[in-house]
C-alpha cells in the first residue's frame, strides 16, 4: 500500500497508564500516519486492548504520564464521545449486552438513513432480524463481530480501531469480515489487534508493533513479524535489543 500523506493521525508520546493503581501501559510511543493501517501483536495480558481503551478514553484507564494526540489535537483527557466526534471508532472484542437497546436503534443514530442501514446489513450478510434484537444478547462470536463491523461502517470515521475482529469467527465469516475490513480500511487509518494474525490474510497492513509487558518492544513489517511470532513465539520479540533495554528499565523502575 502506498501513501502520499505523511502527517500523523495518532501519536502517543511516552504514555503510561494505570487502572486501579496498577500500571498497564509503560512509556508507550506510537505514531500512526494518516492513511496507514497498523497492527498490534502481543501475548495475552500484554496490554493490547488496554491501549485501545486508552485511545478511546475509557475513564478507568488513567493516563499518569505522556499524551495522546489525535489529528494534532491533545485528546488525553477528552471524554469518549468527544474523541468519537473528532473521528475515531472502535470495534470491540467483547462488547456488553444492553437489554432493550436494539442494534437497529444504534445504527439509526449512526447512519440516520434506513436505506444505508439495509445496504450495510446486506454487505455484511447480516440478517435484517438482528436490527430488532437487543444488542449482543444471545449473539454468537461471529454475530458479535459482524454487529461491531456494521456499526463502525455506519460510523464511517477516519480512524478505526479493531480489537481482534478475527477471534471466534469461522472460516466462512472470516473471509466476509476480512474482505469488508480490507475494503473499509483502504480509505482510512487504523489500528488493528490480532492474536493469531488470521485477518492479515485479507487486510493489507503497513506496519506492525509488538506489545510485551505493557511496552512496545518491536515495530516493523507486519508479515515478517507475524511469521517470526508464529515460528518462535513472543520469546523471539524479547530477544531483540530494544526489548531487552525495556526489560532492564523496568527492573530498575519496577511496576507498582
Amino acid at each position, binding site marked *: 500500500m502506498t501513501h502520499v500523506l505523511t502527517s500523523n493521525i495518532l501519536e502517543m508520546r511516552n504514555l503510561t497508564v494505570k487502572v486501579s493503581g496498577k500500571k498497564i501501559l509503560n512509556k508507550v510511543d506510537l505514531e500512526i500516519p494518516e492513511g496507514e493501517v497498523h497492527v498490534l501483536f502481543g501475548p495475552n495480558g500484554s496490554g493490547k486492548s488496554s491501549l485501545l481503551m486508552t485511545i478511546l478514553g475509557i*475513564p478507568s484507564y488513567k493516563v499518569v504520564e505522556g499524551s495522546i494526540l489525535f489529528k494534532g489535537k491533545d485528546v488525553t483527557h477528552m471524554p469518549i464521545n468527544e474523541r468519537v466526534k473528532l473521528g475515531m471508532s472502535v470495534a470491540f472484542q467483547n462488547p*456488553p449486552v444492553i437489554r*432493550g437497546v436494539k442494534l437497529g436503534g444504534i445504527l439509526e443514530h449512526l447512519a440516520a438513513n434506513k436505506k444505508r442501514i439495509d445496504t450495510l446489513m446486506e454487505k455484511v450478510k447480516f440478517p435484517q432480524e438482528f436490527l430488532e434484537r437487543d444488542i449482543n444478547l444471545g449473539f454468537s462470536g461471529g454475530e458479535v463481530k459482524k454487529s461491531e463491523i456494521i456499526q463502525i461502517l455506519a460510523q464511517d470515521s477516519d480512524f478505526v480501531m479493531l480489537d481482534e475482529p478475527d477471534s471466534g469467527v469461522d472460516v466462512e465469516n472470516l473471509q466476509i469480515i476480512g474482505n469488508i475490513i480490507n475494503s473499509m480500511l483502504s480509505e482510512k487509518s487504523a489500528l488493528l489487534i490480532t492474536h493469531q494474525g488470521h485477518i492479515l490474510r485479507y487486510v493489507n497492513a503497513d506496519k506492525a508493533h509488538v506489545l510485551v509487558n505493557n511496552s512496545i518492544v518491536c515495530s516493523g513489517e507486519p508479515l515478517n513479524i507475524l511469521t517470526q511470532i508464529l515460528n518462535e513465539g513472543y520469546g523471539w520479540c524479547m530477544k531483540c535489543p530494544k526489548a531487552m533495554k525495556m526489560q532492564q528499565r523496568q527492573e530498575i523502575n519496577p511496576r507498582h
Partner: protein
Amino acid sequence: MPKSYEDAAKARDKPAALGPDIDVSKFSSNPKVWNFCPITLLPEDVLKRAYEVGIVADDQSRSGSFFQLDHSVTSKAVQKMFEGKVEIMSTSEAIEKYDWMKDYWWTAVKVDADKYTSLAELKQNQGYFIRIFENQKVTLPLQACLFVSTDNISQNVHNVIIAEPGSEAQLITGCTTHPTVNSGLHIGVSEFFVKKDAKLTFTMIHNWVPGFHVRPRSAAIIEDNGVFVSNFLCFKPVKSLQMYPVAYCRGVNSRVSFNSILYGTKDSYIDTGAKVVLQNEGTRGEIIARTIATDNAQIYARGFLQGEHDLSKAHLECRGLLLSSKASIYAVPELLAKAQGSELSHEAAVGKIAEEQVQYLMARGFTEDEATALIVRGFMDISIFGLPKNLENEIRRMVDITATKTL
C-alpha cells in the same frame, strides 16, 4: 343487608398487610357530578390526560369504551361492529341486570381483606363490568378510564371482567388525575374471570400525582386452557401505591403472565408485586418485573409463586435499576412449593447502570446523558412481554409519551 356488606363493615379499620396505612376518613365523598356524554365531548384537558394512559377519544380504534370521572360514569359504549360480542356497563347496572352477578361479586377478592376492600364495598363508586361473550374474538382493544378530577376525593371502584369460554380480548385500563388534583385516594377492586379456552390481556396504565394514594385490589380466576396476561405500567410520581394482585390457575393448562414496568420518581412509595397460584395440571405462571428508582423513590418489587400441583411450572424475573443513591429497590421473590413436581424458579438483579454499557454507547457517539437515557428506555422495553403486535405498538406509544416527559 348483603353478607358482603356485613363482612366489609367488620374490616372497616383493618390495615393492609403491606404499605403505609392511610386515614381514609380524610378524603371527601362529594366530588363534582359529571353528565353522561360521548368521550369526544369531554373537556380537552381531561382527554389529554386520558390519552397519556392509553385512552383515546377516537372510537374507531377501540371495540368498546367505559369512562368514569370521579363517581360519575360518563360513557359506556360498544362499537357497532362489536355489538353482540362484548357488553360494557357499570357494575351497579350489571348487579341490577343479572342475578348471577352474585356468583362473581367478591368471589376472587375478599371483601374483608383490608380497610380498602371494605371501603370499596361500603362506599362503592361505580366501576366497570365487561363481559366478552362465548367464542367471540374482540379484535380491537377495549378501553376503560378511571379518572379523578376533584381534589382530595376517594374514588372507590369495583370492576368485574368476565371472558366467557373461548373468547379473546384485550383491555386497556387507564387511571389518572386532572392536572388540578393534588391529593386523593383511588381504590380499584378488579375481579377477573377467564373461562375455559378464553384469553384476556389486561393492560393497566397509571399516571398519578405526588400527593395521591392508590390501592388496587385485584384477583383473577383462570379455568381450563385459559390465558390471562396482566401488564402494569406506572411512570409518574405517587404518594403511595400498594398492590399485590393474585391469579389462581384453577383449570388444567391454565396460564398467567404478570408483566410490569415501574418508574419511581420523587418521593414515591411503591409496593407492588404479583402472586401466582398453580392449582392444576399443566398450569404455568410467569412474573416479569422491571423497576427503576430515582430521586428518593422507594420501591418494593414482590413476587410470589405457589405450586400446588405436581405438573405445574412458574418463573419470576425481577430486574431493578437504581438511578439515585437516595432511592431504593427491595426485591422480594418468594417461592412456595406444596407439590413435589412443581417447578418454581426466580432470578432477581438490582443495581445501577453498568458503566461499560454507557461507555459502549458513548463510543458510538452518544453523549453520557443520551447513553443513560437510551439504556433506561431499553430497560423499559415492552417487547419482553410478548404482546400482540397491535397492543405492543399501542403501549410503546404510551411508554414513549410518558418516558419522554420523565427522562
